[in-house]
Structure formats: C-alpha cells, structure tokens
C-alpha cells in the first residue's frame, strides 16, 4: 500500500495510485497527478536527519572514528512535497541536493533494542534534503541556517508501508539533475543502519508516530541552479521531483 497526501478542490486528501497518471482520492474521485498539489505524504512530527552516514562518503574521514551517529533536527517549516519549488538564494556558491531514504516511525519507541527496532517502522518515503554549504559554520554543525531553510526539505511522493519493502537496506538510490544521473548509491552502505539509528535515538528520546529519520546520503552531490529539475529516486519507494527557483520568485 502506498499513499499520497494531496490538496485538491479545496481540501487535503489521502490518495492512492490508480494508474500511471491518476490518483484515487479516499472519497472515490479520480484525479490526474498534475491536477493536485502534492504535500509531504504524512504530517511529520520530529524530523531527525543524519550526516555522514554512507560509507563512501565517510571513508575519506578516518573510518571507525565515528563512534556515534551525527544527527541533527529540523522544524516542520522546512518541508515541501513532490513537484514543489526550492529556493536558491542569489548570493550562494554551493547548494546541493541529498537523496535520502526517510524512515517513518509508526509506533512509540523508547529504549528499543536493535532486534526490535523494525517493529516501530510504519513505512518509508524519499527525502531530498538540500544543504547550502556557504552557510556552514562550526557550531552545532550543520546548523539550521544550512539545513532548516523554508522549502529545502522535500518529502514524497508516497508514503510506502513498511510491509511492502522487504529489505530497506538493499535499495538503489539516485539523483538526476535535468535528466543526468549525478548521484548513485545503495542503502546497504549506510554506516549506521535503520535498527542502529532507532536504537541510538530511542536510547535518549522517545520516538512517536509521525517522527521521521532521514538516513543520510551517499557521495555525488553537485551544485544546482535556478531552473534545474532535481529528481531523487529510490527503487521501490518513489521518484521525487523538485525544481530550483531563484530569489526573483520570492520578490527578493
């Protein structure tokens, strides 16, 4: 089962895929993909993101030096859905996407062991977690100015039930900028896998339904410019489309 959350005809709806071009709303209406506004596919609670969580990304650092996950938080205002617009400020030199598997918690988790962790996962979606490297500073790095910007965390298109993803640690993921593949990886290369992350996080905080863990991105990030179409895709989860826009759109 996969569901989308969309705005259509004056209300927000949960929808399921009808065919390649249409959605079926919960009330029975069939609507074209381009007739709706795609929202993040669930209402997110606490948003936790991981840095440096892919082996090839981290191996240039001294491997094994990373004794605990590098995690940081985001607020709800950063989120947008599929086919949305993300702002690139005019004065920055390096802004890049990050294709990530997003793990959605479905059952309260406190002090959960690795062995039990997957029982707390409701499902998955695709995340594109943009970063603007110009704003990196070495205080609580990466800080909110880099990672919690309005429009800079894209989620969707689908929420995919965990039961439909037999092995979330064997998924190819890739990013295409204007149709050219710029990033490739596989979720098997996570430094801290999903059970490890749930065990780690639930060791000091209670995770609640709707909380989401963005599990990090592999190597292969490049600068994106206004007008670029950025597609982040994970096999079996979804293909998330986003467009970069400039300050002019915001009358800046």
């Amino acid at each position, binding site marked *: 089962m996969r569901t989308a959350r969309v705005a259509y005809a004056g209300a927000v709806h949960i929808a399921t895929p009808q065919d390649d071009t249409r959605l079926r709303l919960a009330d029975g209406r069939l609507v074209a993909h381009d007739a709706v506004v795609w929202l993040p596919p669930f209402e997110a*609670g*606490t948003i936790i993101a991981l840095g440096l969580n892919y082996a090839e990304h981290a191996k240039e650092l001294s491997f094994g030096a990373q004794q*605990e996950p*590098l*995690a*940081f*938080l*985001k*607020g*709800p*205002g*950063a989120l947008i859905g599929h086919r949305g617009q993300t702002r690139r400020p005019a004065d920055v030199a390096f802004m890049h996407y990050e294709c990530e598997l997003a793990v959605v918690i479905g059952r309260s988790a*406190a*002090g*959960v*062991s690795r062995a*039990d962790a997957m029982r707390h996962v409701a499902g998955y979606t695709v995340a594109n977690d943009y970063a603007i490297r110009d*704003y990196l*500073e*070495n*205080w*609580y*790095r990466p*800080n*909110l*100015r880099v990672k*919690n*910007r*309005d429009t800079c965390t894209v989620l969707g298109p689908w929420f995919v039930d965990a039961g439909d993803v037999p092995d979330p640690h064997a998924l190819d993921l890739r990013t295409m900028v204007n149709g050219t593949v710029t990033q490739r990886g596989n979720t098997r290369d996570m430094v801290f896998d999903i059970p490890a992350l749930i*065990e*780690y996080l*639930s*060791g*000091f*905080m*209670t*995770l*609640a339904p709707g909380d989401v863990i963005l599990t990090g991105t592999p190597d292969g990030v490049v600068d994106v410019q206004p007008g670029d179409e950025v597609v982040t895709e994970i096999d079996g989860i979804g293909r998330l489309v986003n467009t970069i826009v400039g300050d002019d759109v915001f009358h800046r």
Partner: protein
Amino acid sequence: MRLLIEDTLVHPADAPLPRDLPAVRAGAALADGRRAEIPVSGTVYGVLHNAPSALAALGDKIHAAPYKGAPKAPVLYIKPRNTRIGHGAAIPLPPQAPAVLVGAALGAVIGRTACRVSPGEAMDFIAGYTVVNDVTLPHEEFYRPALRQRIRDGFCPVGPWVRAARHVGDPGALEVRVWVDDELRLQTSTRGFLRPLPQLLADVTDFMTLQPGDILLTGLPWTGGFDTPQARAGQRVAIEIENVGRLENPVVATCPAPGGAA
C-alpha cells in the same frame, strides 16, 4: 491564524483546553501545586551562545579548531516534542548523570506567521512570553549538534503559562532568578544578549518561517558553564522571570531503559 492573548493563557492539567484568564485567576487555577500543560503546541527553537559571557568563557578556543571563529549567524537548535513538559511535571534525570543543568530562558511565543520580519516590526509578531527551562546535560564541545545532551525526554519544561506581551514590557530588561530547593542559585537578567529579540527574530525568519504558537528562546544567561545551576534527583527547580511567571519542576531519577543505548 493569529494567536491572541489578552492576559494569561493557562492550561491547568485537569482542564481540557487552555484559558485566557486575568493573572490573579490564572494563579489561583494553579494553586496548591497544581500542574499545568503547555498552553501552546508549536516548535521550540533555542539559540546557542547568545550571551557574551558564554562566548567569552570559551576564550581563545573560539579561534582554534574545530570552531575557527565566532559564529556569524545565530546558532539555533530545536527542543522537539519529546522534550516538552508543563509546569510541575518531572524532569527525568538519566541514570548515568549526576545532575542536569538548568537553562533559564525567556520564551517568546509567536502570535502570527513570521517570515522575513524586520527588527523594527518584530515585536508585532510576539503574542506573549513564557518561562522555559532549557535543560541540558553538561557538554563543552559545540562542534556537533548536542542531541544526547539537549533533547532527552522531559528536557524542556515550559510554563506555567503564556503572559500577554503587553503585560511583560521590554523582553530585554527582565530579571531572572533560579532556585534549587528554595536556595537562590542564579540571579541574572535578559539584558545584554548579542542578538536582542527583535534582531534574533529578523535573522531567524530570513530563512525559516515561524508559526503561531512556536516559541523562540531569547538566549540563556550562560551555556554549559560552571555558573549554570545544577539540579540532582529529588531536587526542585524554579525559574522566575519578572512579569512572566515562575516555572517549577522536580527532578526525578530514571531507571535505565531496557536495551537502550544511552
């Protein structure tokens, strides 16, 4: 939506919803040690090292690795929903920690959607103020986000209520006092922050929109330094901010979570 507060927005723990009451009645509603829920439900954002003393305490370390300079933009953090508890609720002390640090902060409660706000208009976006205890475990490294030290369950008491902005006056000139078991442990104020609230709100909303009910902490008098009051299991913490209120919470020991990695 706009969050309007006439006087004191309070949510006694036995009431279904918050109510906006005259201060005297709000006080009566929480008499006899009655607990309160947090009367707003937005996101809580804090700012690191907004007190000159906090940066000064680091001395020359600021210029060395890993920091390589004082922060240029506000260094923000989030106190997520698992951290938030109301007035009177217990702050859980992790089993391996001797004490928690008390972070006495004024919380500015956003009244209407704030995006790209200028310092001059910033105060129009504040509905009121509350007292926040930004609880942490000691940490002296600020290079990576301090989730384990900062966002543990119950590490963000808020309350006892939200006081309307017009009853509070200048948020940059309020006396702050911290007691641990009736002993006055810190006497400070909200004066002298590197970024006063209007500038902070402007800098923050330049890149992230705040919504009604969100809380922006205006800064801690100190962060992780030795002057920070500490509280052990069995002790009771009270933070009082002039014209806003007095937030009280006991600290209680917790057992190790089964199978939990601390």
